[in-house]
């Protein structure tokens, strides 16, 4: 029976119709063999648009549907569903991308219209040869892996666990808490960061549904949505968690000091340590790299003082395997390497600090117990906070780091409160977009903080006059004034750019995610699915996706959790239907396919001497199909005939 094809061309408002003459596309399509119905419509993805498809399937007895609109990566599922609702096998649907690949990238209307016609013709050519496929489902493992124990991961883990689903949380540091644990106050409410975060950290540790693995890293990820197998390396702690009482005597007695990561290197920690006093878990670990005993075989002072006898020198890394249904990546953000910021004096002048260094300086648990002082111990009389250092800067990071304006205001407030110093903010634009943020900015104006609209060009200690002697001088144009200012101050704080974690690329690879041009993990859709990734079952939470402040991070974590939960509670998940199939008539068992299959989905049967594809393992990549020298493997939904038909129809070749 000849196929009966319906072609639906979308205007997408003016997105398509503004460049492509959709009527000409429809007219062309109507003339092609087997096309029995061709129409255009303003918004095909809308309810009435989908209705058009459903009605036409019934009314015109369509056996194939082609929608020419946006990318199939956007709306293929939408239209497949519409087809299915009208009783048409969803795999008899084909999408022609005349928006992302045509109207949005071309200006010449004639060329774009001709290209759109070609694109639709190729889709029709493929559609003609489509075959129905059976949709298949497999059960979802009722457990979620949360990678990263910052506030995003904490929020997500608690939401999931509270819904009754098991969670494994993996954190590579000794403690959970992330960057938020490093902060003193939070903008704009000036809540004590530790006061609001630590209870949540404790909840995570005590939750019956959460298994917490700190000092651990994900080693490998296998499987697919609903059925991941994850290997986790639990680094040797050299402290028996079951025996340790977290009394802290060992830490006190340990003679070896190294710079503390948690304190941005501004104060030391011991070789046996917990990241900070309220660390969760509270039991310390021994950092093998710095421990004197591991270095030269002598010391063991911690063991001597440990009453419960919890030190285990023979502890080994362990690799554990977990099966999970969904993965939530919440690995957070890093900061730009400040050493590239030399014109602003970082690394050259001791009283030039990064934002996070100032956080620790200002923190009661920090190096000065929260006193804001210069390197010589004296209190600054004037402080400059420089915005957009490395952000919004093509020489460094092109994006806005999103948190700096607000934390700069917070710093200004805290400095005024604690030291009564004069505080200058040098900014390009004040971006105070959140709830209560603009009000906070106003409050700071009331407090008398000085704002200069102009980016700091450089910081120098070269005095041009007596007022500048012994000071750090910030040079900037006040662009509102049209005057170049030189402002002598005692301390400079750089609102240095938020950056992707240094190992973001490797992590993205591990979880099958992509990176956006800015280096953060790429979401599935920037508007509608900012917490999903291109890999089904892998979700994003927090600042690993883009710079975020705490409220946004928490919201993002909760959203990712609910998306993961909806997958978990669905119970089953659709797996690839477009798998490969061996044509036994032609297979001679040459085994080449077995080597090329990335998933080991093909096995060789000794008795029949034939290859066989395990459909529940096959992901439908088609590598074996292209490789088979005997033409004995068919790739469903992307078979040779279909692809050749597309190539044949790609242009009007004559």
């Amino acid at each position, binding site marked *: 029976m000849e196929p009966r094809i319906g072609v639906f061309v979308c205007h997408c408002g003016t997105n398509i119709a503004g460049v492509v003459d959709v009527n000409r596309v429809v007219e062309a399509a109507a003339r092609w063999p087997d096309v029995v119905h061709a129409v255009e419509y303003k918004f095909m993805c809308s309810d009435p648009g989908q209705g058009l498809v459903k009605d036409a399937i019934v009314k015109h007895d369509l056996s194939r549907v082609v929608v020419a609109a946006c990318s199939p990566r956007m709306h293929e599922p939408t239209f497949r569903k519409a087809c299915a609702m009208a009783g048409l096998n969803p795999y008899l649907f084909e999408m022609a991308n005349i928006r992302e690949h045509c109207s949005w990238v071309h200006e010449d209307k004639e060329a774009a219209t001709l290209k759109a016609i070609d694109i639709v013709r190729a889709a029709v050519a493929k559609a003609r040869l489509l075959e129905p496929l059976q949709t298949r489902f497999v059960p979802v493992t009722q457990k979620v892996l949360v990678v990263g124990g910052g506030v995003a991961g904490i929020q997500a883990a608690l939401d999931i666990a509270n819904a009754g689903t098991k969670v494994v949380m993996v954190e590579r540091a000794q403690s959970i808490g992330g960057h938020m644990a490093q902060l003193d106050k939070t903008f704009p409410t000036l809540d004590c960061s530790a006061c609001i975060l630590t209870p949540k950290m404790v909840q995570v540790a005590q939750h019956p549904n959460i298994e917490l693995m700190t000092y651990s890293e994900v080693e490998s990820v296998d499987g697919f949505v609903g059925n991941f197998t994850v290997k986790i390396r639990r680094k040797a702690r050299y402290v028996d968690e079951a025996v340790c009482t977290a009394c802290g005597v060992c830490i006190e007695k340990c003679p070896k000091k190294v710079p503390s990561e948690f304190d941005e290197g501004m104060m030391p920690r011991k070789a046996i340590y917990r990241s900070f006093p309220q660390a969760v878990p509270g039991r310390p670990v021994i950092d093998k790299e710095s421990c004197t005993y591991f270095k030269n075989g002598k010391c063991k002072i911690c063991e001597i003082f440990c009453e419960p006898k919890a030190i285990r020198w023979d502890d080994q890394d362990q690799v554990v395997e977990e099966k999970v249904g969904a993965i939530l990546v919440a690995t957070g953000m890093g900061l730009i390497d400040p050493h590239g910021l030399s014109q602003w004096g970082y690394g050259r002048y001791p009283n030039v600090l990064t934002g996070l260094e100032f956080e620790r300086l200002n923190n009661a648990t920090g190096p000065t117990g929260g006193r804001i002082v210069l390197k010589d111990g004296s209190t600054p009389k004037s402080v400059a906070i420089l915005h957009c250092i490395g952000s919004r800067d093509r020489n460094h990071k092109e994006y806005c780091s999103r948190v700096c304006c607000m934390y700069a205001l917070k710093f200004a407030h805290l400095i005024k409160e604690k030291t009564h110093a004069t505080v200058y903010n040098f900014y390009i634009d004040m971006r105070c977009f959140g709830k209560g943020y603009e009000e906070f900015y106003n409050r700071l104006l009331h407090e008398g903080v000085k704002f200069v609209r102009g980016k700091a060009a450089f910081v120098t200690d070269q005095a041009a006059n007596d007022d500048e002697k012994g000071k750090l001088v910030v040079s900037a144009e006040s662009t509102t004034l049209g005057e170049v200012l030189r402002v002598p101050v005692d301390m400079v704080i750089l609102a240095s750019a938020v950056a992707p974690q240094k190992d973001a690329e490797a992590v993205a690879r591990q979880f099958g995610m992509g990176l956006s041009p800015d280096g953060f993990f790429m979401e599935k859709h920037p508007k509608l699915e900012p917490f999903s990734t291109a890999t089904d079952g892998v979700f994003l939470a927090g600042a690993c996706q883009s710079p975020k402040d705490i409220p946004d991070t928490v919201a993002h974590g909760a959203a990712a959790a609910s998306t993961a939960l909806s997958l978990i509670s669905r119970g089953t998940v659709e797996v690839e239907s477009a798998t490969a199939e061996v*044509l036994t*008539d*032609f*297979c*001679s*068992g*040459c*085994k*080449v396919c*077995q*080597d*090329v299959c990335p998933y080991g989905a093909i096995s*060789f049967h000794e008795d029949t*001497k034939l290859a066989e594809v395990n459909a529940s393992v096959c992901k439908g990549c088609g*590598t074996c199909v*292209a*490789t*088979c*020298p*005997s*033409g*004995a493997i068919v790739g469903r939904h992307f078979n*040779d005939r279909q692809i*050749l038909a597309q190539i044949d129809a790609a242009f009007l070749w004559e």
Partner: protein
Amino acid sequence: MGEEKKKLQLALYWAASCGGCDVAVLDVNEKILDIAAAADIRLWPIAMDYKYKDIEKWADGEIDVCLFNGAVRNSEQLHLARLLRQKSKVMVAFGACAAFGGIPGLANLHSRKTIFEAVYGYTASTVNPEGTTPQPTLKVPEGEVHLPDFFDDVYALHQVVPVEYFVPGCPPTPDTIMTAVNAIVTGNLPPVGSTIASNKSVCDDCKRKKSDKPKVEAFHRPQEIRIDPEICLLEQGLTCMGSATRGGCGALCPSVNMPCRGCYGPMPNSLDVGADALAAMTSIVDAGDEKTAREKAGALHDPLGTFYRFTLPVSMLRRAPKPVQGGGPPTL
């Protein structure tokens, strides 16, 4: 049934071929007597004298089966192909040349002009100071003499006349020949268009050991390595066409340490034999980065000649393009 069954009327013809196919018919040994018993051999240029006139005198369809070997590359061969087609009920493309163009088909990488330039011009053994090339027509005092016109392209038989069956091989093995003959004699014929050989590849008959995950470390030519008689030749880095080639030969070449060269032609479901072989052989090259891939897979010598040794005229691209000169149809 008192009346003796009418003997099968058989014709054998050779076009652009080496004669091997005809020798192969003799190679069935004593079974040739069975053929002789079952059939009247009406035409067999290698063994019997004949004239065009004799053939022309036959009634249409008088011949039951014509085994036509050799490719078609000149006007005489085309004429005989058409003539025998007319006189025969069943036309069989016999051997790789008739079925796929065969080794003469590699001439499709050139044109008549460049072939003549080489053959009558600059090959080492050519002495032709006048630069004489064959002309289809030549006036001599006695009148006009004619030579067959040499085409730009080499054709497989089915590309010039309809063909009922294909018997592949360079040459077809005795088994293949007898399978074909028996089918014809008994009238137990497969559907028109069939190839009288296996639907599986040469690997199906090959006794060599294969790994579960075959790998190619490096490509070699047979003379460059000491070939292990037990192990799959492809895994030893030889460009064995076995997996991309229709079986039926009994994997003769691999059984004597020679990689399959593909004379039984593409697999039934093949898009293009060169693409098949190339994808399979290079996909399993042990290379994890671009540089290694280029070094190892790029060392595959003469992919075109290797993959299309017998099949260029029936391949997807069929020939090399001719220089653009005013367009128009190609010269025959």
